[in-house]
């Protein structure tokens, strides 16, 4: 059986097609297929980038001037000796699973994914394969999500209650993906909606892809007054505790993340509320998806790798774990995250890149 993908210094590499998937250290002459634009998956430096069509502008917004092209979901094409196609992963706009086939042998790399449909409408579909490489961010049975509309009701109830007491609501959410998810769940009849500049940056791209979000304004000096006391502001986690946030006067703050399921991180975050809203699959979601692929070999990466791998092994699957440069436990790197991929670096300092656009 051919090894369609191997783990190298630069990341996952397909020797038969001579391309990388989400390389963390791409270089000149390298071709990269990108599952999605979060910075632990899309890194600068390759000659050529390929991603899902709806993700091209997101990748460009992240990486700046690079050569990037898009492939429609489901379209099969050849790269070197292998056939490749991209399929919705449901994580953020344009996130894709990568399917690779060679002489009847099929491998799928999941990237990050979730099982529930979100505002992008790009619902993840498990792809049948022999070998599946899956993420495991929330790979523990303690992580189970409630449906998104329920979380939406919680956010709206909290916002309405704040507004009735003359308190501004601020929700911290990752600028790409989560922030738009939160926006899509808001009931705009409660009050005016504002976004931080780092969130605003992605809104035209979402709009161009046909995602309907409530009308909102960028929160800046000019309209602080309009937000104060009744509005809701969506900001990246890095803006937490900043001079920017303090401008909104008396405020209630919340953090939207799967990590908010557990009391310790909720309290450490120091916000008034934690909303358990994730763009990753929960434990049942991971297990369902893996089962639906029909894969007999599963590589586990990004998260609680050893836990999920051990569980799958006990269910009779062949498993292995893949190291990435973005393991929270290594402590040496991964300070440039923009998904909710890591618990340990996630609470405060890690989002400078997103939160730094203080005005």
């Amino acid at each position, binding site marked *: 059986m051919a090894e369609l993908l191997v783990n190298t210094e630069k990341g996952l590499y397909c020797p038969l097609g001579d391309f990388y998937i989400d390389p963390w250290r791409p270089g000149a002459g390298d071709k990269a297929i990108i599952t999605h634009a979060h910075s632990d998956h899309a890194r600068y430096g390759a000659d050529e980038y390929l991603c899902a069509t709806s993700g091209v502008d997101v990748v460009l917004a992240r990486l700046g001037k690079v050569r990037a092209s898009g492939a429609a979901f489901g379209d099969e094409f050849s790269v070197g000796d292998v056939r490749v196609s991209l399929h919705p992963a449901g994580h953020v706009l344009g996130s894709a699973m990568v399917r690779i086939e060679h002489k009847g042998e099929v491998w799928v790399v999941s990237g990050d994914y979730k099982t529930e449909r979100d505002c992008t409408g790009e619902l993840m579909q498990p792809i049948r394969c022999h070998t599946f490489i899956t993420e495991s961010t929330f790979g*523990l*049975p*303690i992580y*189970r999500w409630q449906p998104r509309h329920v979380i939406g009701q919680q956010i709206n109830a909290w916002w309405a209650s704040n507004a009735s007491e003359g308190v501004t609501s601020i929700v911290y959410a990752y600028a790409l993906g989560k922030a738009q998810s939160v926006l899509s769940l808001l009931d705009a009849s409660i009050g005016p909606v504002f976004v931080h500049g780092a969130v605003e940056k992605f809104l035209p791209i979402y709009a161009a892809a046909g995602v309907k979000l409530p009308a909102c304004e960028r929160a800046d000096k000019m309209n602080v007054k309009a937000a104060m006391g009744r509005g809701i502001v969506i900001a990246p986690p890095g803006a937490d505790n900043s001079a920017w946030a303090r401008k909104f006067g008396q405020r209630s703050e919340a953090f939207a993340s799967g990590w908010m*399921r*557990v*009391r*310790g*991180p909720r*309290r*450490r975050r*120091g916000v*008034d*509320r934690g909303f358990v809203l994730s763009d990753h699959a929960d434990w049942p979601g991971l297990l369902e998806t893996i089962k639906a692929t029909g894969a007999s070999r599963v590589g586990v990466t990004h998260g*609680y790798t050893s*836990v999920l791998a*051990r*569980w799958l092994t*006990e269910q009779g699957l062949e498993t292995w774990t893949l190291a990435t440069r973005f393991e929270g*436990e*290594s*402590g*040496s790197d991964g300070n440039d995250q923009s998904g909710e991929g890591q*618990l*340990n670096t996630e*609470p*405060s*300092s890690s989002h400078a890149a997103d939160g730094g656009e203080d005005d």
Partner: protein
Amino acid sequence: MQRFTHMYESLDASTSTNDKVHALVAYFSSAPQPDAAWAAWILTGGRIKRAISHTDLRLALHEATNLPAWLIDESYEAVGDLSETISLLLPDDAAGEPIGLAEAMETIIAPMRTMSSERKREVLRTAWKRLPSEQRFVFHKLISGSFRVGVSRTLAVRALAQVAKIDQAEMAHRVMGTWEPTPAAYAQLFAPQHADQRGAKPYPFYLASPLEHAIESLGDVSVWQAEWKWDGIRAQVIRRYGRTTIWSRGEDMLSDRFTDLTNVLDALPDGCVLDGEILAWEPGNDRPLPFGDLQLRIGKTSQPKHNELLFVDTPVRFVAYDILELAGVDMRSRSLQTRRDELARIISNLNAAATIVLSPVIAFESWQQLSTLRESSRARGVEGIMLKRLDSQYGTGRQRGDWWKWKIDPFTIDAVLIAAQPGSGRRASVYTDYTFAVWTGDKPGTGELVTIAKAYSGLTDAEIDRVDAFIRSNTTSRHGPVRGVRPTMVFELAFEGLQDSSRHKSGVALRFPRINRIRDDKTADQADTVASVRVLMRLQADRS
């Protein structure tokens, strides 16, 4: 449980005192009496004994979910709290009659204590079927005897007083001592102020505030009384209805631990309450023994023989410094001057000079002179000086301004961080429990580093994050949750005393160690040595 859980979550989520009192008042105004009685009892310090072991909890969870033990362990590692881990792992399948707090305490938790392990797990699995997932966390805390809530007794008392529409001090008095969490006792808390409902209950202890400004700011020396700050057990002696009871500030009844004292105190006139300090006293010498010696006298009563030996080896005395009740009359609103005169008279009438003594007043004419005297604290075996306004009433809690404690500076050493492990609860998955070491050689940086203390507190959240990052990128080894750390980061530790120890490799243990600051200006080879720490120990011992 629903109402109680809701209150718990409000208290847990808020850092504002007003919001907390608000949540408590809302609860006590609306909860059914049997539940409210339990809540009042728990929040004012009632201790719930564990009804089920962690092992049985885990086993019951395994039986209910079929999750393998290793996966439960992994989940626990990530969460840091067993009660919460279990709530997060159980399916959301609650149905059936809701459970009230009183019902939970009386019909589930109390009977469980005497059940077989199997029966306990069966009862627990049945309870789970009736508890919605958000209520399970609090239920597990209660059942495993680990219920804590971020609200002080004072705050609970404030809320109860507000609901009962009585004085806060009166409520503080009513919830003191032992009472049963029954609707009848709860109703008593709300009864109109009675002439005499005192029984054996102590008064709320009045606490001094730490003096954080210059001593001269206290102004005219002649309005202040100075005493030594004793390092023993703060206690109230209550003589009422022909009985003597001793209460610690933590509201443990200590009477049976110190029968050698109560025997003498039985001679007090009826209707008399004294405030003072219990100290172990070196026979034939006029100074107290270290606190560690006194500790031997607490918690050893189950071995009466041993205790009698200790009576001889570690004699104790009660050093009285205030009188709160005399001839059944509450004296607390009289001036300290008046109370002190009455106290002196009562003590001299007792005629028990070796056991019950009056806390001496320190004569001084200037702050400068008092400051010099304070330097002798360590030699006298005291913690510093107490300052009380001569016209002060005996207040409640910690009303600032009238009573000050002016403690001597703690000992400090510089030690090297060599290992760390994650905290629990709020600090799970962050490295907050540190192990520190000093050098064995005769000079800093020579010999090897040996452990001297573990410390948890003293850093700000920002500093904790910084140390956490340092630990993660400087890990040299792992043993379970413990990480060995490259020994480069130096911390200044403060502590109150030293004693010999077999627990730490250095052979020395620090009392109340905490982190003063991170010494970025020092490298590991500038940290203290075992020898230099032992010098401090001699300093502590050479008290005369």
